[in-house]
C-alpha cells in the first residue's frame, strides 16, 4: 500500500498523503452522510409518531388493511440483499473479482425484486382507493381524514425509501461495471465498501418501516 504522496496511482487523489488517509476520509464521509439520512427520515418518523399517537385506532385499522405477507416477504428480500452485499464487500476485501461481481449482481436482483413487489403493492393500493386524494376511501373508519394521513405517511415514507433503493440500484450497476473493468483491487475497494454501507442503511430504514406501517395492532383485525 506504499505509494508516494503525490501518487500517480489511479486511486490516490492529490489532496491526500496516503491511501489510508483517503480511505479513512471516505469512510468517515459516508458515515456522516448516513447520519444526515437518519435525520432526513427522522422528520418523517416524527410526523408518523405524532399522528399515530393522535389517532391510534385509525392507524390500527389502516395498518391492518396492508398486506403483511408482502411486507414480510419484502423485508426478507431486503435482508437477503444485505447478506449478498456484505458477501460482495468481503470478496472485495479478499480481492476476488469474480465473486464480487457475482454477489453484486445477486444484490442487484434482490433490490429490483424489492422494488417490483413495492410497485405491485402500490398498484393494489391504487385499486383499493387507498391513495390519498379525492377518491380516497378506507373501510372501517368513519373519519377519513386521519386515515388519509396514515396513507400519506405510508406513501411518503415508502416512496422516499424506494427512491433510495433506486439510487442504490444505480450505484450497484455502476459498481458491477467498474469491477468488471478491473477498477478495484484488494488495496482499493473503498467504493464497494461505501456502497455497502449505503445499502445496509437503506435496509435498516426498512427494518423500522415494516413493523410501523404493516403491523400495528394486527390482533384487532
Amino acid at each position, binding site marked *: 500500500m506504499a505509494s508516494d504522496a503525490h501518487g500517480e496511482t489511479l486511486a490516490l487523489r492529490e489532496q491526500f498523503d496516503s491511501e*489510508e488517509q483517503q*480511505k*479513512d476520509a471516505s*469512510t*468517515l464521509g459516508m*458515515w*456522516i452522510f*448516513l*447520519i444526515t439520512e*437518519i*435525520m432526513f427520515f*427522522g*422528520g418523517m*418518523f*416524527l410526523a408518523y*409518531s*405524532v399522528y399515530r*399517537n*393522535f389517532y391510534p385506532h385509525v392507524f390500527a385499522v389502516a395498518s391492518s388493511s396492508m398486506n*403483511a405477507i408482502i*411486507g*414480510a416477504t419484502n*423485508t*426478507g428480500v431486503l*435482508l*437477503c440483499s*444485505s*447478506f449478498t*452485499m*456484505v*458477501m460482495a464487500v*468481503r470478496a472485495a*476485501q*479478499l480481492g476476488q473479482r469474480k465473486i464480487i461481481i457475482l454477489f453484486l449482481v445477486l444484490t442487484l436482483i434482490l433490490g429490483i425484486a424489492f422494488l417490483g413487489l413495492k410497485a405491485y403493492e402500490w398498484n393494489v393500493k391504487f385499486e383499493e382507493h387507498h391513495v390519498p386524494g379525492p377518491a380516497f376511501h378506507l373501510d372501517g373508519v368513519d373519519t377519513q381524514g386521519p386515515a388519509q394521513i396514515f396513507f400519506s405517511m405510508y406513501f411518503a415514507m415508502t416512496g422516499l425509501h424506494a427512491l433510495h433503493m433506486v439510487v442504490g440500484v444505480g450505484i450497484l450497476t455502476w459498481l458491477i461495471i467498474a469491477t468488471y473493468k478491473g477498477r478495484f483491487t484488494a488495496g482499493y475497494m473503498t467504493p464497494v465498501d461505501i456502497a*455497502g*454501507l449505503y445499502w*445496509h*442503511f437503506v*435496509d*435498516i430504514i426498512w*427494518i*423500522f418501516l*415494516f*413493523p*410501523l406501517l*404493516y*403491523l*400495528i*395492532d*394486527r*390482533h384487532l383485525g
Partner: protein
Amino acid sequence: MATERVDSVKTYAAVWIVLLILTALTTAVAYVDLGAFSVVAALVIAVVKMLLVALFFMHLRHSTHLTRLVVTGGLVWLMILLLLSFADFMTRGWVGVPGR
C-alpha cells in the same frame, strides 16, 4: 487500520439467518394481543435487527471510535427531535385549558 478484518462467511450467514427469524417473529408477535407492549415488542425487535446489521454487516464492531461516535451522535440527535417534540404533544391539555 493497516489491514482489514475479514469476517467469516459463517458469521455473516448466521447473522442473516437470525435477521430472517426476527422478521418472522415480529410479524407473528403483531397478531398477539400484548396491549401497549405491542409497540414495545415491535420496536425492540427492530432495534435488535438494526444493531445486527450495523455491527456485523456495516462492520461497526471493527470500526474506529470516531465512527461509533458519529453513529451514536446521529441516534442521539434523532432522539432529541422525537423527545423534545413529544414534550409538546404529550403535555397538551395538562393545564385543562383548550390550546394550552
